[in-house]
């Protein structure tokens, strides 16, 4: 529902002579003042978003997923050291990695990769403002941008070199362009939305369900004039752009690489239970944000238009899909964060007006929701303490340091075995040594095709093909069986701890204690 100021701003107020009247000058002054206030506020929100996304960005090294994408980007750049461990075509499309590789031409430091990701995060916050403003008004846009800026879910993910940050940026752009189509009814916006959707798919192929969201939106919205050919053309643009994904390896001379990954991803064993998203994501988004968004669905139900249908579609379809899809990842639902923030902002701005509670109530509500969410984000971006780790929630304490120790202190060409493939990735990225996870199944149906199994680890150590075993607390917690297996080889093959990384953990009585998180063992037959 456009506000009064937005109405004023959208019409040129001139008389028949073309002169601007005094009333119009006053209106223009109001518009200008609002624009200044909006711009200043948005700048503040963007600054807050940037601070939360950049604060101590490099305190902890990459996690397993980050090293894969950073490794791919480095391989595109031509960093020869990493190319043997991180082939360019490994999994997922390469839009983000290609962008990242441009920055890697200057420096491949961890902070560069994460800063690029954070840049997408801040840009997403600005897009959320545009989305809120275009669908409702500038106040909704500002509040939505604020909620997005401080949302732990988005803050945490966009501080990492993950595909989900850029994916969310482009999916938000798609939603924005679909909204422009809804407002203007001009097919060119639908085509542009198709283009943005194509780039969303090129960021991460699982965002293909954005097509489902768009379809649900268009199908459930009766008051939009949509010609079938425009819909098909938009879809064609999206699909045509997505064709870059399979086309690129062919043009690059590696047509058979990376194809098996999607198949494996579709049929791999579930890694989390059905309740995973319900327990993890609302807390990460902020209970207040979720509660206010849901409250608005009820309180403002009488004001439902195609705008809400658009937002609901882009939230519900991913939730339903990923809930049904056995494979779950913490960051998979990140694209629902922007529409959720807009819905929450709409409730905060419009619900008090509907109830006649006044503007102050909106300010209080904004404060009540945003401050705890921001505090949760602040807490989430502090270097983690503890020896447990949820994939996608941040870096791995000690991983970078252990890897660099390996690079400095073990002979080139040394080979390592880790408990799982995640630590193997980290060892390969920072340590530049080949590492394989014990937990990688020898059965090709049960493993990520990017990983090599160790069919007979005992023989590998006995034959001195492997000279180091790397234990880590994070993998040990997830795979106690393979931890025991690894330690049995340590015992059997004269294992000697040559390096230990520790982290501070808070004990049950609240005291800080030092605990080993990564131990490098040298072994020989």
């Amino acid at each position, binding site marked *: 529902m456009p506000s009064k100021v937005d109405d004023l701003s959208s019409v*040129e107020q001139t008389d028949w002579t073309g002169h601007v009247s005094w009333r119009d000058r006053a209106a223009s002054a109001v518009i200008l003042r609002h624009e200044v206030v909006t711009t200043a506020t948005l700048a503040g929100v963007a600054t807050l978003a940037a601070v939360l996304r950049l604060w101590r960005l490099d305190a902890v090294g990459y996690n397993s997923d980050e090293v894969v994408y950073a490794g791919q980007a480095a*391989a*595109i*750049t*031509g960093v020869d050291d990493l*190319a*043997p461990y991180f*082939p*360019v*075509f490994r999994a997922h499309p*390469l*839009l983000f990695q*290609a*962008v990242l*590789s441009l920055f890697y031409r200057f420096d491949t430091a961890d902070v560069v990769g994460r800063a690029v990701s954070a840049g997408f995060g801040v840009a997403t916050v600005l897009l959320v403002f545009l989305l809120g403003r275009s669908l409702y008004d500038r106040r909704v846009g500002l509040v939505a941008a604020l909620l997005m800026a401080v949302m732990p879910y988005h803050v945490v993910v966009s501080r990492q070199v993950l595909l989900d940050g850029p994916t969310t940026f482009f999916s938000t752009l798609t939603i924005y*362009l679909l909204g*422009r189509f809804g407002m*203007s009814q*001009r097919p*060119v*916006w639908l*085509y*542009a939305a*198709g*283009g*943005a959707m*194509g*780039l969303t798919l*090129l960021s991460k192929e699982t965002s293909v369900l954005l097509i489902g969201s768009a379809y649900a939106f268009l199908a459930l919205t009766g008051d939009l004039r949509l010609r079938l050919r425009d819909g098909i053309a938009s879809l064609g*643009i999206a699909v045509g*752009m997505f064709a*870059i994904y399979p*086309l*690129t*390896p062919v*043009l*690059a*001379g*590696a047509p058979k*690489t990376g194809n098996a990954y999607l198949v494996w991803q579709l049929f791999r064993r579930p890694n989390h239970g059905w309740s995973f998203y319900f327990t993890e994501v609302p807390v990460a988004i902020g209970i207040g944000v979720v509660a206010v968004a849901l409250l608005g669905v009820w309180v403002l139900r009488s004001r439902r238009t195609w705008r809400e249908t658009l937002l609901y579609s882009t939230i519900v379809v991913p939730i339903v899909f990923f809930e049904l899809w056995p494979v779950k990842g913490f960051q998979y639902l990140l694209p629902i964060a922007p529409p959720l923030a807009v819905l929450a902002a709409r409730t905060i701005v419009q619900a008090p007006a509907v109830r006649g509670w006044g503007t102050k109530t909106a300010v209080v509500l904004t404060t009540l929701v945003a401050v705890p969410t921001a505090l949760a984000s602040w807490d989430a971006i502090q270097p983690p303490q503890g020896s447990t780790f949820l994939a996608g929630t941040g870096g791995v304490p000690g991983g970078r340091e252990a890897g660099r120790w390996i690079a400095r202190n*073990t*002979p*080139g*060409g*040394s*080979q390592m075995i880790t408990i799982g493939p995640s630590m193997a990735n980290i060892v390969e990225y920072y340590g530049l040594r080949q590492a394989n996870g014990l937990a990688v199944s020898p059965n090709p149906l049960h493993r990520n095709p990017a990983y*090599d199994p160790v069919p007979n680890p005992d023989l590998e150590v006995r*034959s*001195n*093909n492997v*000279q180091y075993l790397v234990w880590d607390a994070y993998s040990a917690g997830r795979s106690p069986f393979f931890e025991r297996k690894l330690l049995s080889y340590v015992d059997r093959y*004269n294992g*000697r701890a040559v390096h230990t990384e520790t982290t501070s953990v808070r004990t049950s009585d609240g005291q800080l204690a030092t605990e080993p998180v990564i131990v490098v063992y*040298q072994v*020989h*037959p």
Partner: protein
Amino acid sequence: MRRPAFVILLAALAFGVPQSAAAEKHAAQTPVEHLVVLMQENHTFDNYFGLYPGADGIPAGVCMPVDPTKGEKPCVTPFHIGTRDVEPTDPDHSQSTFERQYRGGRLDGFVHALNLRNQDGRIAMGYYDERDLQFYWNLARQYVLYDRFFSSAQGGSTVNHVFWVAGKAPPTGDRVSRTGLEVETIFDRLQQAGVSWKFYVQNYDPTLTYRTISAAPPNRASQVTWVPLLGIDRFLDDPRLNGHIVDLGEYYKDLENGTLPAVAYIAPSGPSEHPPSSIQSGQTFVRTLVNSLMQSTSWSSSAFLVAYDDWGGWYDHVKPPQVDKWGYGFRVPAFVVSPYARHGVVDHTVLDFTSILRFVEDNWRIRPLAQRDANANSIASAFDFTAPPRDAVMIPARSPAASKDATSSPRTGPIYVTYAVGLACLVALLGWAAIDRTRRRRAGAAGR
């Protein structure tokens, strides 16, 4: 029984040679502060490296007569072991077989000599190549391979091992003496000079010496042959000397603790590559030893040499120089791994086991033991001490062609082009939408 070296040693200890002065006098003269020597078993250069590029390997067109006394035909051409119906065996390598194969320098009796021993003489012409010896060939590509390294004596293990430690043959020739060996060794000299040394023995059994060899199981008796010190009374009875003969496990501990001695000899047990045992297990053994050295702090000041004690009955095409009544014997494989070793070089210097002694004597300022080592070339020709030490890089067990890293990298240009096209498409569509919006606004304004 008089033991001059032992007496000299005791005298030196009794009168108290100033330790620091001795240490200074006998400090390493090169950056090689640790020399480790492993003696494997029974192969010729042509048998292991006959097809190695750049080395003096098997000549083209060679065909070994089955009976050289009856002419050149029929004959046996060199073949890759496993490609013919020839059973792997332990070719006879006694001194008489050497003489029959050597045939007064004609080198045409390799097949016939084994046939006379009731063996399938064709086996002598078998060879291994990179398919079988990937690790050794990889080592040679990175470090130094000697292709003129001869066994010291025209005999088997016993005499050559004694040359290895003493620079001369034992009075008993090529058999273990039942009454003990009286010979001064390089270890006596090192002990006198205060230079640290150890003799590492795989699966070491201290009770197994020349005194007990008759009661030893046949598969363990080789310990006495391969560790000549176990045939010398003073090395058995004097704890100050005997304490230097230790199990191979101490090699790893010394590497871990940074206590690797200046001179270390290693005698294998099972993985000696003595035919017909597995050459793969030998390579694994050597790889473990070398890798462990690379993993240690001693790497930057070490050299690791691998040699083979005798020709083992196999064919080799190079006539050994005759330097004295004992040798040389046929060429044996030998290579050195060190941060100071030249990169991927085939060294043609004429060497034998006493060349190792010569290097020890030169490097730690030790007097020569005998005429042979005094006149020998040093293995030092493999080193380049003007270059900084090379970082340790583990040698892959598989050849480069077989390794995963050999896969070609894709072209990255198309990645930028295709994804840039995608971004450009979006920009174009957004531009189109913006133009459309502007036009509509203008049209709306004009309509009013």
